[in-house]
């Protein structure tokens, strides 16, 4: 019995070490903040979207598309959460030259939450055979509204100030996206497993913020001393 327990403990330690080494092997030093975002509470079934007015888009969905206000994966994992360093990030001055891309396809924006840094270009592509308009309802930045009929060249814009911007297509009222404009490059957007990881963090104190479009935002403070992984989880309540 006792040996069994020891063997088990040794195996567990070995497993942890392997995981830690694998994760670290991929990075060039620095600490990691990682974990999972989940949601608790009564969640209504996502509303189905009626695309009857746009048959070309409607038939791209074998089962009707559903609203992306709250998207939950297996194990209550919360999708489309932006997790980022809201204070203490070491890299707030530069913006990448590579653009981020958002595609209008099947009368939806993909991805639904588009993260970009201040000053970084966002390229907007219309792959549908119908016209769209891209209308970011910005307040900290300037609000604008541009038409993108089918077959036209991608549009490119950038935002100078950090802001979570609701983006509409007025022609198709169900189309909704968010532009998350951040100062830092240390961000992640959760997928259907709710997992996130912020890497390459030099020692220091950081504020980690998790933002969701309808469930609000939460913050946690973490301290990195070396190359360790600090587990951080967020639980949103509905």
């Amino acid at each position: 019995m006792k040996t069994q327990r020891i063997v088990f403990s040794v195996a567990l330690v070995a497993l942890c070490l392997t995981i830690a080494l694998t994760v670290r092997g991929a990075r060039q030093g620095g600490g990691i903040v990682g974990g999972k975002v989940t949601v608790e509470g009564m969640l209504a079934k996502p509303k189905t979207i009626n695309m009857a007015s746009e048959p070309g888009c409607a038939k791209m969905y074998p089962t009707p598309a559903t609203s992306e206000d709250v998207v939950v994966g297996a194990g209550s994992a919360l999708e489309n959460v932006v997790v980022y360093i809201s204070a203490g990030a070491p890299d707030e001055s530069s913006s990448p030259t590579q653009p981020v891309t958002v595609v209008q396809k099947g009368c939806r924006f993909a991805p639904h939450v588009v993260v970009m840094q201040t000053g970084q270009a966002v390229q907007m592509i219309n792959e549908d055979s119908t016209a769209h308009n891209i209308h970011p309802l910005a307040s900290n930045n300037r609000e604008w509204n541009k038409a993108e009929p089918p077959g036209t060249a991608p549009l490119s814009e950038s935002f100078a100030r950090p802001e979570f911007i609701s983006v509409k297509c007025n022609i198709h009222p169900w189309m909704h996206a968010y532009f998350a404009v951040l100062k830092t490059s240390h961000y992640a957007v959760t997928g259907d497993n709710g997992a996130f990881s912020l890497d390459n963090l030099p020692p220091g104190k950081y504020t980690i913020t998790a933002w969701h479009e309808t469930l609000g935002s939460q913050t946690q403070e973490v301290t990195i001393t070396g190359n360790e992984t600090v587990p951080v989880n967020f639980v949103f309540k509905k």
Partner: protein
Amino acid sequence: MRLKNILMAVVVLLASGATVSFAQESHIGNLQGRSTAGKALYRRYCIGCHGPQGDGAGENAAWVDPKPRDFTAATFKCRSTPSGTLPTDQDLFDAITRGFVNTSMPAWKPLTNQNRADLVAYIKTFSAKWKDATAGSPIAIPAEPPVHVDSILHGRELFQKMECWKCHGPEGHGNGPAAATLTDSKDNPIRPYNFAIGSRFKCGVTNEDLYRIFMTGLDGTPMPSFSDVLKPADAWDLVHFLRTLQPMQTKEAEVWKTWVETQPAQAKQLKPIGPDQGNLEGSL
């Protein structure tokens, strides 16, 4: 005595500091407007609808539809400047002078030019955006080419291809498939312009005004800017076609009518504007 002088200096400094940070000027041609003068005019003529804070929440706002402009957002429909940029002082001056057709905002022609310039300056004190940024550069508008049926026919193609009809309707009656669900940026219902009622356009009456409206877009509304997707020559063709949708005697309508009457066979072959029938049946 000395203490009194110092106190006096501090008071003067504070007062001047306050005016420097909040005062605004406007420049319309040779006219220079001052917000200090505009404030009194605003309180006399504008406050009832636009409110003391300029946020469009004046006493009358509840009974006004469309709602009064919220100046704190610094988002304006009628601009000569690209979508997402601040309008010029002249744009704001013209908007006050012209008023907004089919709304509660009258044309303020009874006020002097100086009065209206002062009001423009005061309106700019309601948003910090006027401190952070300067007005956009007005879009370039090349001279209008002569009206010809080819221009109108091409404009008609663009009306189909740009999907103007989605909101404005196949005949421009403001009844397109997306018209019913349109909302402005404050989520208030808003209707697309109906060309058939023959009313003035929101931002002017000339062909150049019409060109400017769809090339810059009406910020704060669903009407987007088309300047990224239409070349100037295309834009003029679209202007010429749009004029044929109005019930007035326009030179464009004359040219169009003559063509339809003299070329009935060709006119009959024109595909109706609206959804692609093949697409409707689901054969993309």
